[in-house]
């Protein structure tokens, strides 16, 4: 099992959309290494013929009738929004300058 480097943690934080500053990277990277070491034993436990379990219950798709049921009003749905415009969620720009 590979050790996790500070650069890798920075990359993963980037993928997870979390800005970590240098102090946080210094703090978290060694802890993540220790956690990964402690779970590394798992790779040798199960042989190829063991099926994976993603869910505790043997459930497949659950359907309901295609009928209209009550739902939130626009006012309720927008009630916690940081910014609202014209009954919509107002967000910062989503495109870069070059786009």
């Amino acid at each position, binding site marked *: *099992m590979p050790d996790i480097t500070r650069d890798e943690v920075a990359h993963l934080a980037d993928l*997870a*959309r979390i800005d970590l500053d240098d102090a946080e990277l210094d703090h978290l990277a060694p802890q993540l290494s*220790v956690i990964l070491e402690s779970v590394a034993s798992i790779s040798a436990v199960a042989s190829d013929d063991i099926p994976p379990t993603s869910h505790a*219950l043997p459930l497949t798709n659950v359907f309901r009738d295609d009928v209209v049921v009550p739902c*939130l009003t626009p006012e309720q749905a927008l009630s*916690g929004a940081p910014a609202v415009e014209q009954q919509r969620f107002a967000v*910062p720009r989503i495109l870069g300058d070059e786009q």
Partner: protein
Amino acid sequence: MSWIRKTAAELADALAAGEVTSVELTQAHLDRIAAVDGAVHAFLHVDAEGALAQAAASDARRAAGAPASALDGVPIAVKDVMVTEGLPTTCGSKILEGWIPPYDATVVTRLREAGLPILGKTNMDEFAMGSSTEHSAYGATHNPWDLDRIPGGSGGGSAAAVAAFEAPLAIGTDTGGSIRQPGAVTGTVGVKPTYGGVSRYGLVALASSLDQAGPVTRTVLDSALLHEIIGGHDPKDSTSVDQPLPALVEAARLGAGGDLSGLRVGVITELSRHEGGQGGWQPGVMTRFQESVDLLVKAGAEVVEVSCPHFVHALAAYYLILPAEASSNLAKFDAMRYGLRVVPEGIDNPSAEDVMRATRDAGFGDEVKRRIILGTYALSSGYYDAYYGQAQKVRTLISRDFEAAFEKADVLVSPTAPTTAFKLGEKLDDPIAMYLNDLATIPANLAGVPGISVPSGLADEDGLPAGIQILAPALADDRLYRVGAALEAALLEQWGGPLLDKAPTLEGGAR
């Protein structure tokens, strides 16, 4: 004896007999919260006005001869991970500070329909990640047995509220032990129902395949009464079990009779030997556990030893599966639709993505960041098979261990947590030491089987509560209540009263 020290079942009887009103009971608990919660910090939000209005409505229903349920008028506290219309819901995180959900979780809807006044929302580790409540962004909860110690977690607020007599009942959620471990270290009862037995609709998800809500109480019967109100099929949760609940209250009443003749109890070898195992089992916890097993034998049960050889890998599997699911579930906190929005400084015209990154850095605490990054790693191509894929296979092996064990025994037992409550701050920056608290409780979540923690007594070394965990096959939650109630009755006789009578009164204890 004051009303606050009575069990929920006793309060329900007193309400039915007209000896007290729900308004009086609710006020008594609000007074207790005002007196001791400065020291305990079990609550993040108290809704005195709302609770009293709900209590008045309950009294009106009763006066009209139409109580809504067995617990109509008995107040309750709700873990802050359950959304409540009109009441703040933070999940212990800054990212949801001040958020007021526009709808109720199904559990909350059922509590309201059953007439239980909601006292407030209880403290928790941020997004339920932790075993001590110290990862709450709003400050730790203190254990009523010793205010310098942790109340367990993630549901330390619910357990402490019940242990400190601030509420007769509370709702918890258990993803890897967050109901049962706080129960053990606060001398209270906590139940994790069968996965899918209680609706997850409106429960802010940590790990969707593991999360389960359940009762937090002071007695086994109270848990059964509450479980019957919140449990059962919910079409709004596609993983909800579409079957009627077993007769839980009946099982608790039957068990309290004390006869367990013919019952087979399996002691899990891997979770009941303190020598050579993971985690460092505290001798006093093991002594109380063994005494409890002896009491089950005295009640007529037959004890067999069962081996679950893959349980030693449960912790590793859990800390891959949980972060993987959590990193995905917590992606929704994107600063766009609700919750915190932080605009980064020093960037001209920041993009949505810049805002998202800055918000998630400012809004999430260390433990949440650790787990999101770990989950992102476990799900990365190149590592997926070695980590997440293997963890899912181990999950299969753990379920098979349970299946084999339940062929030899009707219920399984182990200590709930390896130690009694540790000091606040002791394990805060040592994730592995913190994770080991859930060693015994995690296998049940991975397999979806139900479990209860019942107080087993006080450890000799430190005089702090320890717990015994009882596990049953999926959908056989009634067995937890039968065995739990029988053990509780035997222990109460031995102690000469409830264990919590030995806890500090906290009067005048406000800090």
